[in-house]
């Protein structure tokens, strides 16, 4: 049984042990200064994109300031994503100008309580579903 840090990834049963995801692009990572004085490279949490440069420098966080993707997002969409706990918002509508209308729609479906139903609605209707709908009517 392989060990993954403090997790145990079980491969001997059908029990799910974790999940795969795509790795965020390199521009979303940055150097950060730990309290011990050691520097590590970690994903930059998006709330660091919207704090003052002085505060960022004080925390030792290397937030991109050039005209790259995170900075462009912040500059362009700040009015829609600003506000208390914007970085932790669970309301996809707050990110509509970042994700676009379609991306926002998919996100909203994905985090809704009835995910399977909303995903199914994106498929073209089948002959059976049309028949079922007519019978219901």
């Amino acid at each position: 049984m392989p060990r993954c840090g403090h997790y145990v990834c079980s491969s001997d049963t059908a029990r799910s042990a974790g999940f795969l995801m795509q790795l965020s692009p390199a521009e979303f990572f940055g150097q950060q200064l730990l309290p011990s004085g050691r520097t590590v490279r970690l994903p930059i949490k998006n709330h660091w994109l919207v704090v003052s440069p002085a505060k960022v420098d004080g925390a030792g966080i290397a937030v991109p300031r050039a005209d790259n993707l995170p900075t462009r997002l912040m500059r362009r969409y700040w009015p829609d994503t600003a506000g208390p706990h914007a970085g932790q918002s669970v309301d996809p509508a707050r990110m509509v100008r970042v994700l676009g209308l379609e991306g926002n729609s998919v996100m909203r479906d994905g985090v809704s309580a009835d995910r399977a139903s909303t995903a199914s609605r994106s498929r073209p209707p089948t002959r059976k579903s049309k028949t079922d709908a007519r019978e219901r009517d």
Partner: protein
Amino acid sequence: MATTARVSQLGRWTNLAAAPSGVYRLASYRLPGFAELAFSGFHSAAEVANLTALVEFRSLLDTHRRAVLDNATVWPLRLLI
């Protein structure tokens, strides 16, 4: 589409950062359409239920909507078994 991947097929992985972050970069395992992959482990049954629903949601999307989701987010792709 597939919703699971086997831990035994992942190959080598490294911690994403010098300090334990709970996320691990996969050295060679790839899925079509993604440059690099990472994985994280579960801590609780609630997490398993939640992530299972998210992976299943993505698997039910048509190709276009799945691409929109993948371009905008780091959505869970597969459950590890």
